[in-house]
Structures are given as structure tokens and as C-alpha cells.
């Protein structure tokens, strides 16, 4: 039987060199993504939330194989992408597609809508004749709710929402299994964004798509995702089913996020401070500077993700390093740290 997991990130770390000084020497390494383990199952929507700068987009690029991880592995349908290069990888690319944050930038300004949507068909030799391609473009435009009359327009002649629909149609052209949506509605206004989410949900049903849905907006993630991963400073600090995560957040950072999203400012209490720089990560837990529960042990040791089943098991602040990701238990919840009951 095929692996139910479509996309799997194993211990993925991405570091960028920081250059400084007159000779632009490497002065340090920024860990944009730090030992992330995630998987997206077939037909599933995995949400990924976190504040800006926490490495969400970098992770999206790694997942879409647009960026090679510094260490760790990316697997897709049982094949190891991080070992692939050249034409082999290019052929694999039709199995997943990336939806970008800013559709104005994601379309070549010189391509008409038709040319943009035809390009993947031509690259992967999916439609032989010009007439076939015409029909396919019309069908794809229809799928995303655009009339065929849009086909001969340029991106500059479209609204933001229409552009994003074209980007989605282009992605669907290769019949992907997975769409990686990197803040797909962040650049759209609220009502258009809501329509876009509706379209994505609709497409999931009809095309059996899986999503890696990345957003800083908890509301849209809540409406899209089956499971949610919370990212903080490059690391995933909690993974849980959407329902469980929104009902009882376990990690103090998740709680902070939820509070800031769903409560009026006056009720939020202490703002919780700024995230420290990813360039100078201190020892121990990366969240401890802002954590209301920080103790001495948080300075000494960094928590690892451990599977937990709600509700309240005996408090386990730090997992032994040997405990990795467990799959398959009824409702596994992965937390690095949680409040004592």
C-alpha cells in the first residue's frame, strides 16, 4: 500500500549565512528553520501558523523544493526530493504546486492569462494540440470561477482576486496532489479573501487536493486546516488537530497567539514582548524570554516535541531527546512544553 503521507519533512534545518564587514565574511548563521518534522497526509489540510519572520515562507520553499534544506530530508510520496536534481526533480514538480502570497508578483507581466496557464501544460507535455490546450485552459478557468474571456488579458488588467484565481488555475494545470499555499489571502481584502478560502475548500473536495496552508491569520487557518502546526523562531512548538488546538492550547506560545487573535486588545494583558533574533539564539528553550512559565530548567535544556494525548497527562515539561514523532495514535498532540494542570 502506498504511503498515506504525501509530503514529509524530516529534521529539516535551513541556515543562511550572515555576511558582515568590509570583506563580507561569514559572520554567523541564521537558523530560519530549525529541525522541523512535519507531514501532510493525502486529502489533509495542514495549517502552519506563526508570527512574521518565524520561517514560514522559508519552510514553504523547502516543502516546494524551491530551496534545498541545509540539513534534513524532504520526501514526497515515498521519494526523497532532497537527493533529486535536474530533470528528475522538474518532472516531480507537477505533483505539488506553490500558491504565492502576492499574485501580482507571481505572474509574468508579459504573459496573458492563457500563456500563463498554458506554460505548465507545455512544460510537462500534457496537451498535444493547440485546440486541446485551448479547451484545458477554458476548463481550468472555469474551475477557479473565471470566464474564458479572461484568457487573453494581461495580469495588469486583472484585480487581485482574479490574479490569485489565475495563479490557482495555473497550479491546477499539472493536476497536483498537494498545494502549498503561502499566505494566499494576505494580500487580498477581507471579502475577496473569504471567497478565496471558499474556492480552496471547494477545490479540495472536487480535486482531492491536500494543502499545506500557511498563514499568520488564525481565523483562516481555523477554517481551512484539519491539523495545525505552530511555529516559533524557526521551530515547530506544537502540532495538534485544529479543534484541540483552538480549544485547549498547550504550548504557552500557542496560547499567546490565540489570545492575541481572538480577544480584544484590552483583555490581552501583557503583550509578551518581542521575539529574540534568530541570529543569536540563546541556550535552552527559544521561547523562554517571553514565556510566563519560564523556569531555570528552560535555560538549561531545550524541549523536544513529544506526543501527548489530551486531556491532562501528568505534566511533562521536557521530553527525553530520544522521543521522536509518533504517528498514528488516535489524536496525537505534539508539544514541546505545556502548562502544568
Amino acid at each position: 500500500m502506498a504511503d498515506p503521507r504525501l509530503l514529509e519533512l524530516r529534521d529539516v534545518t535551513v541556515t543562511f549565512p550572515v555576511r558582515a564587514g568590509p570583506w563580507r565574511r561569514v559572520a554567523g548563521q541564521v537558523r530560519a528553520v530549525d529541525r522541523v518534522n512535519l507531514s501532510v497526509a493525502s486529502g489533509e489540510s495542514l495549517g502552519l501558523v506563526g508570527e512574521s519572520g518565524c520561517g514560514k515562507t522559508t519552510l514553504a520553499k523547502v516543502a516546494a523544493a524551491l530551496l534545498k534544506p541545509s540539513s534534513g530530508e524532504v520526501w514526497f510520496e515515498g521519494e526523497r526530493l532532497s537527493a533529486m536534481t535536474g530533470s528528475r526533480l522538474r518532472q516531480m514538480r507537477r505533483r505539488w504546486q506553490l500558491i504565492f502570497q502576492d499574485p501580482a508578483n507571481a505572474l509574468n507581466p508579459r504573459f496573458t492569462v492563457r500563456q500563463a496557464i498554458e506554460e505548465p501544460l507545455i512544460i510537462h507535455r500534457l496537451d498535444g494540440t493547440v485546440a486541446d490546450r485551448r479547451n484545458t485552459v477554458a476548463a481550468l478557468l472555469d474551475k477557479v470561477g473565471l470566464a474564458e474571456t479572461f484568457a487573453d488579458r494581461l495580469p495588469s488588467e486583472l484585480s487581485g482576486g482574479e490574479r490569485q484565481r489565475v495563479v490557482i488555475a495555473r497550479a491546477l494545470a499539472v493536476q497536483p496532489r498537494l498545494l502549498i499555499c503561502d499566505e494566499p489571502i494576505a494580500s487580498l481584502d477581507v471579502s475577496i479573501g473569504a471567497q478565496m478560502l471558499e474556492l480552496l475548500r471547494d477545490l479540495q473536495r472536487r480535486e482531492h487536493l491536500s494543502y499545506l496552508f500557511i498563514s499568520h491569520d488564525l481565523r483562516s487557518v481555523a477554517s481551512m486546516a484539519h491539523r495545525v502546526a505552530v511555529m516559533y523562531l524557526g521551530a515547530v512548538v506544537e502540532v495538534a488537530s485544529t479543534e484541540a488546538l483552538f480549544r485547549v492550547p498547550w504550548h504557552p506560545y500557542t496560547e499567546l497567539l490565540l489570545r492575541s487573535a481572538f480577544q480584544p486588545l484590552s483583555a490581552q494583558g501583557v503583550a509578551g514582548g518581542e521575539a529574540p533574533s534568530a541570529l543569536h539564539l540563546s541556550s535552552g528553550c527559544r521561547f523562554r524570554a517571553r514565556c510566563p512559565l519560564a523556569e531555570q530548567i528552560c535555560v538549561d535544556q531545550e524541549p523536544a516535541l513529544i506526543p501527548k494525548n489530551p486531556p491532562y497527562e501528568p505534566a511533562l515539561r521536557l521530553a527525553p531527546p530520544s522521543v521522536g514523532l509518533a504517528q498514528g495514535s488516535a489524536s496525537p498532540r505534539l508539544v514541546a512544553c505545556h502548562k502544568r494542570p
Partner: protein
Amino acid sequence: MARPRLWHNRLAAAGLTIVGLLIVVAAAAPLIARHDPSAIDLLHPLDPPSGQHWLGTDSLGRDVWSRWIYGARISLEVGVIAVGIALLIGTLIGAMAGYYGGWIDSVLMRCVDVMLCIPTFFLLLAVIAFLQPGIGTIMVVIGITGWMGIARLVRAEVLTLKEREFIQAARGLGASDARIILRHLLPNAIAPILVAGTLGIGGAILTESALSFLGLGVQPPTPSWGNMLIEAKATLGVAWWLTVYPGLAILITVLGFNLLGEGLREQWGRR
């Protein structure tokens, strides 16, 4: 759409007119010329301008008007083809350097730096010393000594374009490097490349004239403005028309291309 706005810019319009006229004259040379440009008439050397010979005759009795018109043909041909070669090399090298980055970029750009360190004219003379002078040689030589600026320009364009998401999107769709460069990067960088090319044509014509003047360019009897000038040098005191007209032609042509290039640059609003 480009036309009307270009026409509103007076200097650009003047440039376009000059270049347009020049192209018409060069294309229709056999119709406009009143004599064979190489026909020697030893009975009428150094005739001043007259009804028979509009711009007079040279020391061999050849019709200056006809030679002048055929010279326009040569100059345009040399200018366009030399710049075409320079554009081809410069675009290829600049696009590769900008797109691949890393050590490829370093190596290619250091080559550009080295080429730029050598005085162009000295380089031209050195290259020509090893080759047969002639119109083909001169095109190639001007081309291979003039691509560095274009390479830098294209590299800079590609560097900024490369970060745009539609390039990432194309990569994500499985497009090959060649496809990304040819279909996505270069078409979006075409405006500054065309400006550089237009400005380059003026320079190439000037270089051709200078080389021909030194006897290293277009070889007689093929007329070019440059070799018309050197032939006129000996009789400078008695036949002013032999130097003034080719000189004016060079001046106006280079001016025309520069005005047009500047106009395009203003219109497309970059660098």
C-alpha cells in the same frame, strides 16, 4: 502605443527621424545614387559640387554623393551587426552570471573587468593586427570588444528580476533554466537592452569610421565614411567637400542614434 509618446519627446522624435531617413537612404541607395560609387573618372578629379556631381568628385573622379550614400549603407550595416554581436555575447554572459550567481558570476564578471581594463581602441588594433582588415572583420571585432557594458546591464536586470515570484513560480512549474532565462527573464529585461543597443550603434559607427580612417577598417574601393575621410586628407587644402560631407554624416548619424537611445531610455524610465 510607443510611437505617440516617443513623438512627444522632441529630441527623441528628431533622433527617430534621422535614423529613419538614414535607413531609407541606405535601403534605396541604388535608386538615389546618380553614379556607380566605384566608377573612376580620371578626366574629372576633384570637381567641386555641381549639378552633375551634387557633392563633387574625389581625387579619382568618383562621385562623392554616390559614395556618401553607399557609405551610409556600410555604416548602418556595421553598426547594427556589430551591436547585434555585442548584444548576443553580452546578454548571454550577463544572463548566465546573474541567473546562476556564485562562482559562475564571479568568473564571468572578472572577465568583464579584465576586458574593460584594456583600452578599447588598443584592443581593437591588437585584434585587427591578427586578422584581415575588411567589413566582416570589423563587425566581429567591434562586437567582441563592445559587449561588456551590456553584460553588466543584463546581469543587473536579471539579478532584480530573479527575486520576483513569477520566476520562482516558473521554477516551481518545472521550467528548465533555459526556459526561465529565455521566456521569463530576458523578455522582461528587453527595454534597457534595447536602449543600450541603440546607444551602442552610434558608438559602433564612430569606431568603424575611426578604424577605417586608420586604414584598418573597411577597405577601398568599398566606400565608408571613415575611408572617405582618409582619402580626402591629402587634398584637404583644395577640396573641402571631400571631408565636410562624410564628417557631417558621421556626426548626424551618431547624434541620431544617441537621441533615439536617450528618448527610449526616458520613455521606459530606467537607468
